[in-house]
């Protein structure tokens, strides 16, 4: 086990963050100080250690940058570092999620969700769509949603968005579609004939998690390992999270057929 190098990276959170920061761009000491909110005197010893192992170097402009082996290391470290940050928010929550239908490649990069918020409603607000969800949906211009959990208010929300000219793509599971058709015939009719909305249907056995990804945010209601919804949701606004969510949506879209 290359313990010495592992310690060089992970024994100091400052070093770990500096490496991740330099993966985006070279940076001079001022930029480093302000981005990582550190003082030069506290970061300089860390820079020295990283230069000693050959992971970073100073370029001709006086800015610090990753060397090629440094970049090799950090590219392989980033998916792990960001995954740990996401799991750290709620270890038990994550361990109890059913993630089996998410493709491996996207699971390995689940850290892309970034700075997530865990949303757990109090007992008096369990049965309505959450405010965080509603408010952010209403300021979105483009919405992709997987509805694999029936909620009576969803159709109303999507009809409103549709009327407001939002581009909508929806994947329904067969059972959700059935329930919508039988419970809200009229609303469904309006919805199905709309120009802004594309509806796809997928088999129940595909078991996609209910989630929405828009140009503003991603909101997921992952099932637990018993396959039940336990009123725990997560939300993120980071660009990497939106990109991840779009790839996930594309995956389920490939398994669905236009209605």
């Amino acid at each position, binding site marked *: 086990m*290359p313990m010495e190098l592992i310690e060089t990276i992970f024994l100091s959170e400052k070093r770990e963050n500096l490496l991740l920061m330099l993966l985006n761009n070279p940076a001079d000491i001022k930029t480093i100080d302000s981005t990582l909110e550190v003082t030069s005197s506290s970061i300089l010893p860390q820079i020295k250690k990283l230069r000693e192992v050959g992971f970073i170097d100073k370029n001709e402009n006086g800015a610090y940058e990753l060397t090629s082996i440094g970049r090799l290391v950090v590219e392989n470290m980033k998916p792990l570092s960001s995954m740990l940050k996401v799991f750290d928010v709620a270890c038990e929550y994550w361990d109890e999620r059913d993630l089996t239908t998410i493709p491996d490649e996207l699971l390995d990069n689940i850290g892309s969700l970034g700075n997530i918020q865990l949303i757990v409603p109090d007992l008096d607000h369990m049965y309505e769509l959450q405010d965080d969800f509603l408010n952010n949906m209403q300021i979105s211009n483009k919405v992709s949603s997987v509805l694999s959990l029936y909620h009576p208010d969803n159709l109303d929300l999507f009809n409103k968005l549709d009327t407001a000219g939002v581009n909508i793509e929806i994947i329904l599971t067969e059972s959700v579609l059935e329930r919508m058709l039988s419970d809200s015939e009229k609303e469904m009719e309006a919805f199905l004939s709309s120009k802004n909305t594309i509806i796809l249907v997928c088999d129940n056995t595909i078991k996609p998690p209910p989630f929405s990804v828009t140009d503003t945010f991603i909101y997921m209601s992952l099932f637990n390992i018993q396959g039940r919804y336990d009123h725990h949701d997560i939300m993120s606004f980071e660009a990497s999270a939106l990109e991840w969510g779009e790839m996930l949506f594309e995956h389920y879209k490939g398994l669905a057929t236009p209605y």
Partner: protein
Amino acid sequence: MNSSLTDNIWLSEKRTNLLLLLMEGPRDIEQIKVSLNVTSRGMMPQIKKLKEKCLIVEEDETYRLSNTGRLIVRNMLPLINTLRMINENRSYWEQHDINILPPHLFKGLHNLGNYLLLEPDLNYTFEIPKEFTENLLRSKEIMSIISFFRPEYPKFYSQLAEKADSLTLLLSRSVFKRMEKNCASELEFLLSSESTRLYLYEGEGRPPAIDVSDWFMYVSFFNEQGRYDHRDIMSFDETALKWGKELFQYYCDRSTEITEI
């Protein structure tokens, strides 16, 4: 707030090793003791910490990775393998141009696995390494990027064309010119061979020289000055073969087939 997951998985070699061991399957404490050469007394506190963070689960006196534990270890492996590789041959990787690799193959360099770094004795600098010729002559399906010229190549690859079931050669512009000028008959032979296809790469940069077959791969990176320093890498690992084929395919997709001279 208690310690972070990062601290939990990295700051004790015992814990890191246990996580990696459990990636291979569930183990009881006796098996853990033998595999990691530890005592129960030394291991139990570490096991407790990993259980608290939901990384491992105890069931009927055996330990296994939790769902999140498995996801985390799957992401630890590429990093550990990369660090191991750098630890073992730091100067080689520092001095060779790996930046030329396409992004996903750069990141996946650790797929070379248990590779061998071959450095010829000074008396043999100008000969094709034996490891190279012997293993290629035993291969059935061969893909090669020839980005520098050795005088023995035209003859050697002609021999391969006769022996192998399929041979795909990708030549750099300068290698192609040189062969056209000095070894036109071998080039003609390769072009007429049923099993052989030839491609010409005229794109940017000089790709590393690589030969990958059904059971081994051999790659030569250029050094930072763009020179070949006679140090090569050989690997027999499945992951390395896959990596090598992808590298070949990447450049092949950017080349044109040569059908006549």
